[in-house]
């Protein structure tokens, strides 16, 4: 990445603005890797300015009405379209309590002006370790809906990010929406992150809890991101909280589980030891807050 030039320009490309999804999918099928999807553009234009991405075609999907959806279907879950902006999501009432971890995550992303353009699907498709969006999506068992000229398929969030900047999308597929499953009744959720001085996450986590005081019906969910190339749920930790042991002891054990089941990385933002320590501290804080001990 070069920071030498003060004046940042974009490489040459041809701009396309299809009005229907069918048209967009045909364009993508024709141009495949040579085309890039533009929604909010925060990621794409930044990479293009640094010449890390140099597409021949830029396909703007904002004129496609059906991608601008935000639909809460109660127990059947929540659908977020590809071009819904972060500020659309923050203003959307159902996110306020029921999907609070996602809302908290978005409210901490970039800044209010950029959030008029940036999109959740854009964040997820960037698939870089420091993006935050995937972590709360894992918590709500989200699926990414991908469309191509051949049809549609749903990819679980847990299988969507394959590695650094690598997703399960085929070159001719567009991520058109994400579908979140409705969380258990009366559950509470939260999102926390710790960032480097450059404001990139070095650790993030999302956790959810229903019935904290009744072990027989208690549900705990836990996901982390930014510490390794891919985010993940920690199912072993979730199992732990089905036991009748006092909560404070379970939280101690949860930290052991975290230590054993994660492999934090060292990169330009932070060392593995630092990530590992911060994740443990934040895990204790998050679980105490949700389980009230």
């Amino acid at each position: 990445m070069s920071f030498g030039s003060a004046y940042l320009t974009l490489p040459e490309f041809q701009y396309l603005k299809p009005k229907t999804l069918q048209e967009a999918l045909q364009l993508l099928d024709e141009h495949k890797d040579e085309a890039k999807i533009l929604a909010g553009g925060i990621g794409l234009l930044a990479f293009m300015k640094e010449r890390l991405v140099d597409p021949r075609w830029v396909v703007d999907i904002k004129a496609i009405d059906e991608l601008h959806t935000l639909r809460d279907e109660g127990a059947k879950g929540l659908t977020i379209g590809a071009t819904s902006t972060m500020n659309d999501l923050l203003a959307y009432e159902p996110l306020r309590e029921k999907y609070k971890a996602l809302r908290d995550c978005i409210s901490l992303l970039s800044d209010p002006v950029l959030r008029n353009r940036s999109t959740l699907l854009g964040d997820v498709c960037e698939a870089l370790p420091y993006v935050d969006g995937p972590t709360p999506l894992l918590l709500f068992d989200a699926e990414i809906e991908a469309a191509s000229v051949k049809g549609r398929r749903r990819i679980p969030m847990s299988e969507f990010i394959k590695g650094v900047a690598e997703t399960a999308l085929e070159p001719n597929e567009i991520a058109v929406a994400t579908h979140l499953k409705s969380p258990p009744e009366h559950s509470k959720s939260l999102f926390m992150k710790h960032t480097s001085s450059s404001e990139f996450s070095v650790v993030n986590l999302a956790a959810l809890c229903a019935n904290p005081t009744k072990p027989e019906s208690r549900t705990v969910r836990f996901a982390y991101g930014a510490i390794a190339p891919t985010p993940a749920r920690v199912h072993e930790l979730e199992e732990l909280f089905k036991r009748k042991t006092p909560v404070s002891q379970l939280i101690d054990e949860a930290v052991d589980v975290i230590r054993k089941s994660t492999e934090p990385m060292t990169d330009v933002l932070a060392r593995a030891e630092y990530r590992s320590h911060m994740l443990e501290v934040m895990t204790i804080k998050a679980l105490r807050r949700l389980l009230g001990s």
Partner: protein
Amino acid sequence: MKMTHSISIKINGVDRKLEIKDNELLLDVIRDRAGVKSVKAGCWRGECGLCTVLLDGKPVKSCFVLAIEADGREVTTAEGLAPEGQLSPIQKHFVEKGALQCGFCTPSFVLTAHYLLSVNPNPTESEIRDYLSGHICRCGTYKQMIEAILECAKEQNQAKQAATQKTRR
């Protein structure tokens, strides 16, 4: 391959026809082609907020918008907030509080503050701080800017109240 397009953008109420290339940023077109110089280029990375414009009324960082995306839409800059020779309420309060030093970032803060008061007429200090978090002022006149915005909100609310009381009578 066709590399240029004719677009039309309404800038501060005036329709402008511009011949642009697909890869031009709205920031560069507004400054260099349309000659609207209150929109500043600081970082080109969406970090400093100096290139903020209102696109169809909402603040966006124009270094992260393609000029072609603004085709057929409306752009407002600090020049467009009040008629020539006059100040908008928020501009007036920035002047009264001395909420600037070098003035380079001022147009962008004024635009975002203007939008904030249009959607949240009674913001708290922390809401103002949060809303302006995508803008950088290197002179550090944040304190005076926040005072100016609070004062502007207060004055506008009082004026609104007075107007309602008048209609009630």
